[in-house]
């Protein structure tokens, strides 16, 4: 091997080393994107909840009790609040509101009662999930007390009256005159047991 050839070989070797290094660097960067985006997929879950909480998108209401410290009641306006209930597939409960609708002034505190009865022969834990329509009214609908904050266990044939205390925020947009509050009741016995 002549001198020139070996030099040529050395410089090629150096080139190959820098090439390998830059390949490794690019791969590392791309792997970071991959893991980042995998994490981002899961981060979308809390982000979605936060987004819905802030904007009231999707008719999601807050899962936290609101404190009642309203200074005045707007007697000029009257809002009709309607109540709907439905049971999810597979839960043998009777579940209905005692009144179908109430009229409230913004800022006024109101209590309504819902009735639930376990019509099966086994013990079941139920969970009611609320949803408000129109969706943009959700942030103005404040629940002071709600049976939906906790799960509701009922023994076979047992029944219960469950209370909901709420008020409608004074800032509710002028064009909203009716709010529909819908509860869906789910059977969560299996997940409570485990």
């Amino acid at each position, binding site marked *: 091997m002549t001198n020139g050839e070996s030099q040529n070989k050395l410089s090629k070797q150096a080139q190959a080393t820098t090439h390998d290094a830059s390949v490794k660097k690019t791969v590392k960067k*791309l792997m970071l994107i991959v893991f980042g985006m995998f994490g981002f997929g899961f981060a979308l879950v809390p982000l*979605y909840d936060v987004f819905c909480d802030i904007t009231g998108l999707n008719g999601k209401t807050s899962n936290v009790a609101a404190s009642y410290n309203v200074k005045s009641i707007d007697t000029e306006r009257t809002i009709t609040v309607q109540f709907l209930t439905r049971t999810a597939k597979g839960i043998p409960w009777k579940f209905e509101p005692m009144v179908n609708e109430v009229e409230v002034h913004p800022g006024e505190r109101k209590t309504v009662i819902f009735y639930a009865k376990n019509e099966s022969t086994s013990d079941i834990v139920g969970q009611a999930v609320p949803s408000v329509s129109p969706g943009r009214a959700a942030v103005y609908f404040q629940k002071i007390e709600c049976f939906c904050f906790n799960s509701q266990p009922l023994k076979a044939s047992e029944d219960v009256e469950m209370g909901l205390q709420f008020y409608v925020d004074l800032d509710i947009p002028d064009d909203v005159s009716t709010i529909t509050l819908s509860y869906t009741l789910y*059977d969560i016995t299996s997940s409570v047991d485990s």
Partner: protein
Amino acid sequence: MTTDVIDDQSEHDSHDGEHHDHKMTGIKRWLYTTNHKDIGSMYLWFSFIMFLTGGAMALVIRAELFQPGLQIIEPDFFNQMTTVHGLIMVFGAIMPAFTGLANWMLPMMVGAPDMALPRLNNWSFWILPFAFAILLSSFFMESGAPNFGWTFYAPLSTTYSNGSTAFFVFAVHIMGISSIMGAINIVVTIMNMRAPGMTYMKMPLFVWTFFITAYLLIAVMPVLAGTVTMVLTDTYFGTSFFDAAGGGDPVMFQHIFWFFGHPEVYIMILPAFGIVSTTIPAFSRKPLFGYSSMVYATASIAFLSFIVWAHHMFTTGMPLFGELFFMYCTMLIAVPTGVKVFNWAATMWRGSLSFETPMLFSIAFVILFTIGGFSGLMLAMTPADFQYHDTYFVVAHFHYVLVTGALFSIFAGAYYWLPKWTGYMYNDTLSKWHFWCSLISVNLLFFPMHFLGLAGMPRRIPDYALQFADFNKWVSIGGFAFGISQLIFLVLVIKCIRGGEKAPMKPWDGAEGLEWTVPSPAPYHTFTTPPKID
């Protein structure tokens, strides 16, 4: 280690022109190969087999829909057919075909000896057959195959799953890993292996579109992996990401899924843009009109694909602002796409056109893809979408984009490069038969679906109202004709591999690019010394 590589390379340099393959023989060659051409061929064959498998499922669907009423299969099996047909065509046929083309052509186009990560390349192909074996094995299980639609909406895939969710989830995980590895390889190759002098703006547009597509894959396949993982834990491990009873939200599933799903749509069409941007100039004997605007248009489509996902969900009860935002963003995509279509037309304008089979498929692509684009615009209009949503109009739309769009571009590319791959010219008459049979039958198959959808026929149903009977009969006839036409292609490819007229180094006189500077068939190793680009 590095010295070995160099010894190997200098050996090749000294034996320039001679074949010095170090190929293993038999099955081991294909199992252990790290050669980009071998892996490319395996990807292409695999995707063709999957294409026929998914196609057979489509024919089962069309046979059932030939007449109203239930004749051949049960509704549940019908749902399994629609689901697995979609999964196979998306992840098994179109995407691997593009990866195969990328493997074969990218290193040659940028003047590199191979992909940057050859061992990884071998892995990304070889896990793919296992993914589809898992998915297809579910047909032989008691519960049956996935029946919740390829979009696997919760709670269909969680609460109401038939027990196939685990098979589905692990299959998708493996497909995703394969795609991510393939995409990383493409990006690394393009960034590090270009021949000296090939700047980014000198790369062929084919390379550009694969570069951008690979980035899309790297960005959204992990989100898909996350989504299927959530579905898995919701179904089997008691989490409630998508279960309202536990504080989750099924609508959120659709948001996360379509955050992956919409870029996925462009993953399947951007490489098609790259292929026809290669073939149209070649058979117009003119350089591509507006090269840099093509690059920017591709990049803007890729960017916009991340902010339009909720146009798949207009009917989920979004607030007005959301509907307007997603409607306008979606319509904005028509601008860069229009730039592309006009550029292809301008490339052909006053060119000396000749109509070899790759060109025929490319022209059909431009016209029929544009029809699919326009029906996409109709779907983008929120108020109109409330009527079109989940009807056959949607089915017509995405089949125009994916079959006469993506698939036709793959055929165009295959006919364009087949002489380079096999070293033989293919039978021209047979290829013309393939084109005209496909063109006529595909329109008979998908065009009446527009009318069915506008008249209100819902998608994914095994039975339908009597007034849809005539159109469905024609659609089914078109479906079977299209399916049979593809066998012409199979025969043509096998004949072309076995022999024929010797292909010259550059069989198309208007073709440009480094791949035409190597002999046909392309030697096992090309560009061990990089070419100089000026």
